[in-house]
């Protein structure tokens, strides 16, 4: 809301009826329904949500239907092309491998499914970790003046840390314990998520801190204090919900960065075991054969881009939907 005189906005429009009118037995609607109603008005967000659910279903439920093991080799059927190529040429295609196979005969569709599961999980987990750390540091730095300088310098430190040696050190220190605790794949997963997470929270922290600095001077925060709300709950009840929208923006960008960072790690040869596909890895491994087999880069590339785009739109929609002022009511 802009800085016009507080009473000169369009509020009057929304005050339907007279407050002294007899109490009607209006069953209070669940506010999440309202959120959903508002969300539905954002066409891009709804389309994106459908897409995202589809792609999540594809990666999660897909393997139940498409039972090929992504790591299964079928060397006789290597380098098959996607079935669609049959339309314009007598190329090597097979219905058994609708997206084609790679140079060892692994089914691309199964790989994209499993790769998606991992990429999405890495992206989401790393993003959540980054957002959690970033928000925590940002809120604490913004709210407690005394910690501000220290935490901001800590942020500088993390900005300066190089990701690759950090990951190598983390691998060195934690891979074996994690491997014995969670198994090889989950162990690496945790490592990669932690690595990406703890090297990408700084922007969120900065932004959140800036917003909290402004928010904590708001009167409703003072009001909460006058009620006797302790700092802890002032933060959770009054500050956090109001920094939600910048966090949401960071989160969508964070998801994109996390998926891409994972793929860059794959490109640089760090990351998951070799028989463990991720979108980024499929993409990175296929770049040398890009001209001969464009589908191998296009499919994972598109999957990454569209997911990021979808998340971005959903973030937009959600931000609007969560804001009661935009939601109306």
């Amino acid at each position, binding site marked *: 809301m802009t800085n016009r005189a507080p009473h000169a906005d369009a509020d009057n429009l929304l005050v339907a009826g007279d407050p002294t009118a007899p109490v009607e037995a209006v069953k209070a609607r669940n506010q999440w329904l309202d959120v959903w109603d508002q969300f539905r008005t954002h066409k891009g967000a709804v389309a994106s949500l459908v897409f995202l659910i589809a792609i999540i279903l594809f990666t999660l439920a897909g393997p139940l239907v498409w039972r090929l093991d992504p790591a299964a080799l079928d060397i006789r059927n290597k380098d098959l092309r996607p079935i669609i190529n049959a339309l314009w040429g007598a190329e090597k295609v097979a219905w058994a491998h609708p997206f084609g196979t790679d140079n060892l005969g692994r089914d691309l569709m199964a790989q994209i499914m499993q790769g998606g599961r991992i990429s999405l999980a890495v992206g989401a987990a790393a993003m959540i970790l980054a957002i959690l750390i970033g928000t925590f540091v940002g809120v604490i730095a913004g709210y407690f003046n005394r910690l501000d300088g220290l935490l901001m310098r800590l942020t500088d430190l993390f900005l300066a840390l190089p990701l690759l040696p950090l990951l190598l050190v983390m691998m060195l220190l934690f891979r074996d314990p994690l491997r014995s605790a969670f198994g090889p794949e989950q162990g690496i997963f945790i490592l990669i998520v932690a690595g990406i997470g703890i090297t990408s929270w700084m922007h969120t922290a900065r932004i959140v801190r800036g917003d909290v600095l402004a928010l904590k001077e708001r009167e409703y925060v003072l009001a909460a204090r006058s009620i006797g709300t302790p700092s802890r709950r002032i933060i959770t009840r009054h500050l956090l919900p109001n920094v939600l929208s910048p966090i949401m923006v960071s989160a969508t960008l964070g998801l994109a960065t996390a998926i891409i960072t994972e793929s860059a790690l794959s490109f640089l040869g760090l990351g998951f*075991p070799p028989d463990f596909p991720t979108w980024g890895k499929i993409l990175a491994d296929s770049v040398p054969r890009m001209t001969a087999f464009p589908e191998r880069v296009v499919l994972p590339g598109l999957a990454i881009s569209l997911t990021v785009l979808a998340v971005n739109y959903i973030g937009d929609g959600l931000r609007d939907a969560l804001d009661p002022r935009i939601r109306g009511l």
Partner: protein
Amino acid sequence: AAHEGERGRDGALGIIYWQAPSIMNAYLSGGTKDIEAASLVTEPLGRYDETGAPVAWLVDEIPTVANGGVAEDLTSITWKLSEGLLWSDGTPVTSADVKFTADYCMDPEGGCAQLAKFEGVESVEVIDDLTVKVNFAAPTPNPYGPFMGNQSPIIQAAQFAECTGTRAPECTDANFMPIGTGPFVVTDFRTNDVIQLEANSNYRDPMKPAFQTVTFKGGGDAEAAGRAVLQTGEFDYAWNLQLAPDVIAAMADGGVGTPVSAFGTLVERIEMNMTDPSSDLPEGERATAAHPHPFLSDEKVRRALSMAIDRDLLVEVGYGDAGRATCNLVPAPAMYASDNTDCLVQDIDGAKALLDEAGWTDTDGNGIRDKDGVEMNILFQSSTNAVRQDFQALIKDWWEQIGTSVELRNIDGSVFFGGDPGSPDTFQKFYADVEMYANNFDGTDPASYLASYTCEKAPRPDSGWQGENINRYCDPAYDALVAELNGTADLDERSRIAKKLNDMVTKESMTIVPLVDRGRVSAHANTLGGVLLNTWDSELWNAADWYRIKE
């Protein structure tokens, strides 16, 4: 022939190495990229040609026992420099330079990367201006370590006089722009990036080199290097295209360049860990001889794992024409290559039978063979590299067919091959059951290569995990045979012993499971003539003879 004429007639030459050279001094870096780049400028007394045969380079003939250059008792070798050789700065090359080179590398403080070349050298004497004699402490059947091959070029005493010992790294100018006898001299050196060279005006053959300048670009990846030569024609020569054969073939369709390949001694192999790498063992005992491997110590298991592998398919997928299946650790030169082809045929059923016979059966029905409560869970590690990862996937598939479970791990090369004793991921530490990589030996004599599998060369905690016998193979008979080889001068006898040693670690014990004899693939532009791909020496060994083919 068409390629004769005056020096510098063919203008500019572009060479691309996807690993960028960081220094031009072969003694301060063992890296192939650096040594090969340096070979354009500095040269050894003798080289190996593309067949592995020694050729005289800065001398008139290679000293041998026959021509009297090598002492009968094998304790010394005398080199006689050709007359009239000049450094690129115009000063004459003398035997003092040769002696200086040896002293430079043998300085205990200098950290010389080629010290192994000078192993056993007691002293180097200047006999006269052109004659120099190398004395060995003990009879040395292969006296061609020093000054032979691209690792041991002659450097100019005058230029490096102030750069010995601890001061070696301070001489940046000398290390980047050495004065040499080779066909080119450095005009601009940018470390890890690009080197610019021009024809050496004091080169011994006035008609060579044909190219006036050379741009030696480094960095990127093999794919980009291949593309620059085979598809866009931006460069004339690309080194070591470690790419899948279909990728190279697709690039070669570009029609501007040609891939060339040649074989040497590089063998991609699987190493079996003879000790137990289990992380349950206390540090210090883990992966040491104190605990034999729970299942790989069974020879039949190792044999079965080898039988399950289809080496021809590996070659097809990974190397194409640039590889051939092998069962030998020493695949070349021909005189040392054992006649050993048993492993070439894949035999999954045979492997299963062998495991059954050895008592490895799936008793608990989880699909994984076991015996006495030991499950055959294999941790298979290798360095990060596209072809190796394909191999890992294929081998995993086969091994799982015979009833084992395989976990793959790939480790960044800088960690895997780095000797950091603090890291659990080095190939020497071998905290895995099997690992795969490639190794070769310098020159043509496999003696020291085979000697790496003696008991005392096993990496151990007390040796700081250093040592080449990473399998921790230990057989007194092998050790004895190695000693015998070192005392034998007769070539036929040496060949017999070497083959026997090779067989002991491969087909007899299956400690080392060779997979592919890897050739080297490089590529040159169709307009570049004179390229003779040499795997025994620098690829650029005859750059002086390269020329531009004119249409």
